[in-house]
C-alpha cells in the first residue's frame, strides 16, 4: 500500500531546527518507492510561505529542493544519502539566495513485526550523520551531527497509519558559542518525539493516491554550557529548550509523483522567558506546497 508520505515528513521538519533539517525525513517505506530499482531516488521541491500573507511576502517565502538516494544493502537494511538546497526570495547584498542544506548520510533498518491479521507494525532504526554542508552549519563551525532515530508505523486497519518515534541528535561544534554578537549558544543535543496519523482516502492506480493526515511533535534542545558561572556555580550549565509543532496535510500522488499541501505551526515553548505557545500565529503558521518524484 502506498500513501503520501511527504506531508508527514515535512511536518516533522518543524520539530527540529528547520535549517538543519532539510534532507531529514521520516523513515521511508517500500511504499514510497516509485520504481523497482536497486537504488531509489527521490527528488522533491517545496514552496513555503506564511499562511497569512503580509505586506512583504517575499521575506517569508522560500523554496526547498531535496534529493534523497537510498539503496537496500540487505533485506530491510538501506543506506541513504540526503541533500538539499534552499532558495530564498530575498537575500542580503553580496549573499546568494541559494545555499546548500546539511547533507545526511545514514543507514536504516526496518523490521516488520507481525501484529495480528490486518494490523501491521513496522519498526525502524536509523543511524545517520549530518555533515555541515549548509552555510549556517559552517558559520557555526559544526563538525558533524550524528543522529539516532527510532520509528514505528502501525496500521491497525487498511489506510490508517499511526506513526511516530523518538530521535536523538548530537551536534559536534568547534565552539560552544555561535558566531555573531547575539548568537547565543550552539545546540549540543537535540532530542524529540513525534507522532502522526494518516489516512488514505484514495489509493488507486488509475486515479492516484489521496491522503490526509495530522501530526504533532515536541523536542528538547540542550545548548552547550556557557563559559562562565557569573551568578552562581550552576549558571554556566547549558539550558534546555522545548519546542513543539503540529501540522495537517493533504496529499495526492500519482505514479512516481506526489503533491502535497500542508499547514504547519511550530516554535519554542519558552519565548523571552515566558511559556508562550500558539496553535496558530499569523507570523508563524505556514503553508507548504510539495512536489516530489520517486524513481
Amino acid at each position: 500500500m502506498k500513501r503520501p508520505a511527504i506531508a508527514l515528513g515535512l511536518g516533522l521538519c518543524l520539530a527540529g531546527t528547520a535549517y538543519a533539517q532539510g534532507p531529514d525525513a521520516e523513515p521511508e517505506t517500500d511504499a514510497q518507492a516509485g520504481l523497482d530499482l536497486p537504488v531509489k531516488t527521490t527528488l522533491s521541491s517545496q514552496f513555503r510561505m506564511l499562511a497569512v500573507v503580509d505586506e512583504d511576502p517575499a521575506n517569508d517565502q522560500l523554496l526547498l529542493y531535496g534529493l534523497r538516494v537510498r539503496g537496500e544493502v540487505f533485506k530491510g537494511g538501506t543506506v541513504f544519502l540526503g541533500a538539499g538546497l534552499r532558495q530564498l526570495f530575498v537575500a542580503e547584498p553580496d549573499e546568494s539566495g541559494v545555499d546548500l542544506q546539511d547533507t545526511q548520510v545514514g543507514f536504516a533498518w526496518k523490521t516488520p513485526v507481525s501484529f495480528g491479521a490486518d494490523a501491521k507494525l513496522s519498526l525502524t532504526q536509523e543511524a545517520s550523520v549530518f555533515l555541515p554542508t549548509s552555510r549556517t552549519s559552517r558559520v557555526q563551525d559544526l563538525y558533524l551531527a550524528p543522529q539516532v532515530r527510532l520509528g514505528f508505523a502501525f496500521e491497525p486497519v487498511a489506510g490508517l497509519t499511526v506513526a511516530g518515534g523518538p530521535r536523538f541528535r548530537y551536534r559536534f561544534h568547534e565552539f560552544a558559542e555561535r558566531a555573531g554578537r547575539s548568537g547565543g549558544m550552539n545546540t549540543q543535543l537535540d532530542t524529540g518525539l513525534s507522532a502522526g496519523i494518516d489516512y488514505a482516502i484514495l489509493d488507486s492506480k488509475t486515479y492516484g493516491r489521496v491522503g490526509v493526515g495530522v501530526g504533532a511533535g515536541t523536542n528538547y534542545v540542550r545548548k552547550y554550557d556557557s563559559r562562565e558561572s557569573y551568578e552562581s556555580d550552576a549558571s554556566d550549565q547549558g539550558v534546555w529548550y522545548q519546542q513543539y509543532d503540529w501540522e495537517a496535510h493533504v496529499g495526492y500522488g500519482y505514479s512516481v509523483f506526489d503533491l502535497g499541501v500542508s499547514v504547519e505551526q511550530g516554535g519554542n515553548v519558552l519565548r523571552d522567558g515566558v511559556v508562550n505557545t500558539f496553535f496558530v500565529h499569523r507570523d508563524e503558521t505556514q503553508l507548504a506546497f510539495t512536489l516530489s518524484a520517486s524513481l
Partner: protein
Amino acid sequence: MAVMGEMATMNGKRILIAVAASALLSACVDHRPIRNGLDDEAVYLTKSSLTAPNPLVEGSTDEGWLFKVTTVKSSSPNVMGDVVFPGLEGELKYVKLRFQESGLQILDGRSIQRDDPEDPNDDLATQAERVLFEFAGKHVDIKLRESLDGERTNYLEENTEKPWRDRQNFKVDFENTSMEPASQLLWVYGLYANLCAVPLSSNLVPDSFEWDESAQSLGFTIDVTYQLNWLGWVCTDLLHLYERDAQTGNVQYHFALFRRGESDFVPQIIDEKDLVNKKYGAFQVANTFRDHDTGLVGNVNLLHRWNPNRPENDPVVFYFHEGFPEAFKPMWTEIRELTNAVMAEAGATLRFDFRDCLNQGKDEAIPDDCQRPTFGDPRYSFVVWHHSIDTTTGLLGYGPSISDPRTGEIISATTNLYNVGLDRYRFYIQDYLEQHGGLLKPEADKAWEETVCTEGATVAPGDPVRCALIAEGAKNECEASGGESCDAVRSQTETECKQSPRLNTQLFAEMRRVMDLEDGADGSADDFVPQPLRDGFRDDYHKVLGELRYSYPPWNRFVYRTDQVPFQMLQEMQQKEGEFQNAMQDVMAGKNPFGAQALYTREGIEAQLGFTQNMRDWRKNHAELQHLKDFLFSTKSIYTFDPNDAINAIAMGARRCVQRGSGFTWESDKEYSDRIIEAVVFHVAIHEFGHNLSLRHNFYGSVDGKHMREGEVSASIMDYVTAWEEAGSSRGYGQYDEWALKWIYGGDDVRAEAMQQDILYCTDEHRILSPLCRAHDLGITPAQITLNAIEQYDWLYNLRNRRAYRKFWDTSSYVGSVYGAMFDIQRMWHLGIFDWGGGGVQETLKRLDQVGGGTVLTDPEYDEIAVDFYNDISASIGMTMAFYDAVINQPASFRNYQTEYDPFYGDILRLGIIIDKLFSTVAYMDLQDIYYSPNVAAYVSMWDAPFGSQNLALSQRVLDNMLGANYDTFAWFKYYALAIFASTSNTNLVGSIETKERIAIERYENEMELREAYGDAAIDYATRVDNPQQTFVYDSELYVYTYLPDRNWHLVARASRSPVSYQYLREYNESLNAGADPDLDNYGLKILLAYYEYFNNFVGF
C-alpha cells in the same frame, strides 16, 4: 521477540557507544573567544574581591588594605620640581574600600577609638567612616550577554538589571577623583604643590592597571597635567621654563593597594621620652588614639624597622630600576656587604641584596628574560636612578621607606638617586681650579694623563707633593738661568705654594686688619682658630654638645597650638618672601629703597626705619619659611644639594696621580670627574639607604670628632656634609650608624651595649635652633666651623656673583645664598651669649658630672676647663664680626657693590655685593630677633653684646668702621648703618644706654650759648688757625667743635662719649680748614645730627 531482544541489545550498545562518544567529544568543545562589549578604556573592579577579608591570612576578618601613592614620572622640565618629583612617595596608609552609589571610597582604615563590643560605652554607633578620597564610577554586572530565556553568548557586556548593591562589578573612573594626587604624598602637599601649579586634567596611563587577585595587589597610574601658576609661587627655575615655553607639565602618580600574608614581626613601642630618642634616631610610626578611660588623646610610637628576624636565606631585595647606570651598580655590593656585616654583628638574621630581576638569584647574572617589578609597587624595594636632570631642582637623593602603620614593620623602601647634572660639574671644576691655584697644570700643551707625576701627589691647594714638585721646578729653572741661591728659591717657592691657597684674599686681609692679627700670615687657620690649652678640651666639648640640642617647639607632635600649626601660614609666608626677594633684587639693581627724600629729614629717617622694620619682618619670615621647607624635605628623607658644594668637593677632592704601567701620570679629566662623581653618588647612596634602614638624620656627626675614624669627616653617614667632604672621605658606615643599626635591629644585649655609647646625635627638629646641630657644617668647634663658612663664602664669589659658565643664569637664588652665609654663622654668637657666657660651660660640666656619676671638680677647676671653650667661641664671634667688617669694606675695585650689566644686551655680567653689605650691616648693627632655644628668646645687637673683653675692642672697631661710612657703596647706603645704630641704641633692648651717645652731637643755636657751656678759652682754642681739627680740652675731656654757617649751628662732640661724632667733626674740620675741597659739604654732619636728635627730642629743622 528474541529478535526484538537482540535488536534491543544491539540498539542499547549503539546508544551507549554514541553517548560515550558524544561525551568524549563534548569535552573537546572550545569556547569561542569573548567578544568584548565593554569600554576598553574603563576599569571594572570586582567588588567582593576588594571588600572581602584578606584571603592571604587564613581565617582573617581584616577587610583592610595598605595604600600608597608614588610619583613615578614627570615631564621635563617639571613645573613643580621643587615639591613633586619622580620618586616622591606618600606614607603607607591602612585603608578600607567602600562602594557607594556612585563612587569607590577609600576610607581611613584606622579608628581613633576602638570599638569594644564588651564595653557599652565604647561603640561607634554614631561614628561615620572617614573618606580619604573617592573615585567616581558605576555599578554593573560584567557578564556574557544573555537572552531573556537565559541563553548566553560570548559577547561580554555591562548589565545593570540588579540593584546597584547586588551588582558584582564597579566600573571605576580613576581619572575622576575627589582629591589631588599630590595630597596623598603628604597631606599638605596638595596645597603646597598647587601653589606652583594648577591641575588641569588627569588620565589613566594606558595598560597601567594591574590586578593580581592571588597576590592581592592592585595598582594603576594616573597622569595629571598641571598648568604653571605664574601668579602664585614660583617653584622652580622660571627662566628655564620660560625658554622652554613650559607652561604646563605632567606628573604621573602610581596608586597601589595591596595586602600581606602572615608576619612574625613583633612591634616595638617607643615611649615619647624614651632614653633611646636622645641616643639614636630611628623613624617611628605614630598611632594616635582616644584613651577611653581618661578621655584623652593618647599616642603609641612604633619603631619603624625591617623585621630583624627575617630568614637569612630570604634577604630583602632591592631591585635596580630599569636604566640604572652600570657604573654605579658595584657600589651596592659594597653597601650590601657593609650592611649585612652590621646586621650580623647586631645578631639579626635580616639581610639585604641588590638585583635587577625578580627571576635572578644572589650574585647571578641578569637573565635574558629579566622580569622587573613595576616601579611604585609597594611590595618591592627599588634602587632608582632618575636620569632627567630637569625633573627635580637640585635633589641628589631621597630614601623613603614604608611600614605597616599598625606594626611599624617596614615593607619596602626605595633609594632614589638623581642625576642633577653631575657630569657638567667637571666643567665647573676645571673653571674653578683654573682660578684657584689648585690646578697647576705642569705642561700646558700636554694632557693631564700624559704628564708624569709622583706617586701620592694630588693637585690640591697646598698639597705637599705637588708643592715639592713645583719648588723643584723653580730650583731647576733658577739653576738653568744661572741664578744664585737656588735652594732658597726652592724653599721660598715651596712655602708660597703651601701658603697661597688659603685665607689670603682681600677679605681675609681686612679681617686680619680689624682683628689686629699679623699681616702676611702663613695661610694657616691657626691665626683664627685658637689651639686648646688643655688636652681634654675635645672630650669636654664632646660632653657639652649633648646639652646643646634644642628642638623647635612648633614641630613637637604632642604640644602645639592648633590655631597656627606649621604650614598653615605657608601661602602668606611665601608672599612675604616674595616681597623680600623683590626688594632685595631692586637693591641689587642699584635702586634706592628709601626714596628720593634727603636722608636727614624726618621723611628720610622714617623711610630708613620703615625699611629696617621690613627687613626684620622679612628676615624672620625668610628663616621660618626656610625651616618649613627643610622640615618638609626632612620628613620625606630628601637630601637636598647645593650645587656650589660640588665645586668645593671636587676642588678639595683634587686630581690624583695614578699608576700607569710602571710609571705615574695624572688622572685624565674623565677619570678625575668620574671618580669624584662616583664618590659623591656613593655617599648619597649609602645615606639614602641609611634612611631605608630607618636611620634619621644625625647632624652631630660632623662635630663628633671622638667617634670619627681616620679619613672620615663625620661619624655618621646620616649627616649632611658638604660634597667635598663626601668625595674625599672614607666609604662606609660611621660609628654612629653602626651602633644605631645595632640598637634598631639587635637583641637586648646588643642594645644595652649600644646605650652605653656616648655617640652624639641630633636631628631635623634640632637643626633650626641648636647652634652646633647643623647641616653642611665643616669643622668641629665653633671657631673651625665659622672659619670654614667664611672661607666658603669667599671662595664662591666668582661663581655666585659672576655668570661664569652659565648659559642661563637664574639670579634669584643669590639673596638666599648670601643670606645663609651672613646670618647663619651668628648662631655661634648666640651660643656664646646665651649658653657659654656667664659660667654656662662650668655649670653644664658640673651638672653632667653630678648626674653622670663622674668626679665633681671644684669651681676653679671648671673655670680652667672653660677657658678653651671661651677662647674658641670668642674667636668664632670675633671672626664673625670681622667678617662683617671685611664685607662692608671690600673696595669696589675688588668686588664691586654695584651690579654690572651689559649695556646693549641687558644681561648681568657681575652681581654687585650691595646685598652682602646690607646683610652684614643689618647683622651687626640691628637688633637680632633671636629665638635661641625653646626657653630663650631675646632681641640683641651684636655690637652691644660682643662676648668677652677681647671682642669688645674688636666690636668697637667694627662699629666705628661701619658708622664711619668710609667705604665704597651707594650714597643712599652710606649712612644706613648710622640710622640703624641710632634706632637700636635708643631702645631699651641694648645693654648700655650710653652707647647711643657715640653719635651724639651737641648743637648750639648761637655762639653765646656755646661759650656759656665751655667757656671762652676752650672755644678760642678750638678756633685757632693752627688747630685745623678744631679740637679742645674742657674739664680734662677732649672735644671737637665745628660751625655750620648755613644753619648757624655750633656743634660740639666729646671724644670719649661720642667717638663717632668726634671723628666725623674732626675729619670735616680737617678738610674744611685745609681748603682742599671747595665743594665740601656738611651732609654727613647733618645726617649724624639728625639721626641722633630724631631719637632724642628731635624737633626737625
